[in-house]
């Protein structure tokens, strides 16, 4: 199976599950710590006790909504309005869990319920990339989720106590999550259709971010871009089938059209690394 070139390089070695999950979690933890610290400081300045801060990080575990909740709290907002705002901000996780669900078929309901608790933008992105590469297990994914969770809770409590001593933006660590998302985005660019969809999503998201306050733009742009993508894929398939039918009239060979058009769409016909072709094969096998 294809190992994604991350911190670990031992190919095929099963290794202890916990170790692998934690190794995969380090970029997330590196990104969470400064944000968690900042959250702790902010919440403490808004008058929350370290125990209250830790409790929010434990029960909610969703960065941006916690920041907004704290600022709404100090602005005197009602409980109901904060809860509704939280709901809207975190609704985007529906799409992420839906994408992860395919890989959790063998998991019992109870474990799946615990797994769901740890679905964040970051854990979703890392877990999905690893699941797609095929050498990822739900137990490792679970360890990753809870390692990230521990980093988040720990750093926010630490921030509540001592955050004021840490200068904001030390050593460029603020950039960890953006860099991680950029690299995970690169992993997802598995062919021309994915690249086109990514461009549409990015441009739409930026436009919507300028027009609509809040972060609904993430959900809206993702839904629209994926829908465009499916539409393009179908169109290209019809177009390609028409073309290959013309070809077959001349040749009368039983070409496996389906494989052909998929390869064309996934960009494998343009000759990327063979790893990609194998990955695509793996996913196609799953989705049918």
């Amino acid at each position, binding site marked *: 199976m294809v190992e994604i070139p991350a911190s670990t390089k031992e190919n095929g070695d099963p290794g202890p599950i916990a170790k692998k999950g934690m190794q995969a979690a380090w970029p997330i933890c590196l990104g969470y710590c400064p944000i968690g610290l900042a959250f702790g400081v902010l919440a403490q300045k808004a008058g*929350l006790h370290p125990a209250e801060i830790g409790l929010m990080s434990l*029960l909610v575990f969703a960065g941006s909504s916690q920041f907004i909740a704290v600022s709404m709290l100090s602005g005197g907002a009602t409980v109901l309005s904060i*809860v509704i705002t939280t709901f809207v901000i975190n609704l985007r996780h529906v799409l992420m869990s839906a994408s992860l669900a395919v890989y959790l078929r063998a998991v019992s309901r109870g474990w799946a319920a615990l797994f769901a608790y740890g679905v964040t933008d970051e854990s979703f*992105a890392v877990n999905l990339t690893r699941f797609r590469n095929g050498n990822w297990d739900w137990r490792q994914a679970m360890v990753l989720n809870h390692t990230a969770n521990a980093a988040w809770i720990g750093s926010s409590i630490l921030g509540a106590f001592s955050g004021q001593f840490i200068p904001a933006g030390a050593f460029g660590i603020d*950039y960890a999550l953006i860099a991680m998302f950029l690299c995970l985005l*690169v992993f997802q660019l598995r062919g021309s259709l994915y690249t086109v969809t990514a461009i549409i999503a990015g441009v739409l998201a930026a436009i919507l971010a300028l027009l609509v306050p809040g972060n609904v733009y993430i959900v809206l742009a993702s*839904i629209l*871009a994926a829908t465009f993508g499916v539409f393009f894929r179908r169109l290209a398939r019809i177009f390609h089938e028409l073309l290959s039918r013309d070809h077959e009239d001349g040749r009368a060979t039983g070409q496996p059209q389906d494989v052909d058009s998929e390869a064309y769409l996934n960009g494998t016909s343009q000759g990327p690394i063979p790893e990609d072709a194998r990955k695509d094969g793996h996913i196609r096998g799953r989705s049918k």
Partner: protein
Amino acid sequence: MIHSEYLILVVGMGLVTYIPRWFPIFFLSRRRLPQWFSEWLDLIPVSILSALVFPELVTSGNPRHLDFSQPQLWVALPTFLFALKTKSLGGTVVVGILLFWMVGKLL
């Protein structure tokens, strides 16, 4: 120590955050998905990642406005190229942080 109103708040926030995370896993993981839907889901990750990161790079402020002068954007270009070239997650994070730190020192 913890007020009951605060407890209601965080439990409420926890519930409305948890349910969207749990619902699709509970209902979709045991079902055969129609072809168009799994094709659609297949494109969701790339869309979300792009939608998460791109506005961060080209907009700033509150209310947001277009801003092409942020170091976030200019550091993103070499970081992205590094990711394309090496496909290394850890390496990309380290390079991104270092570049961002260096740019911060220069400005």
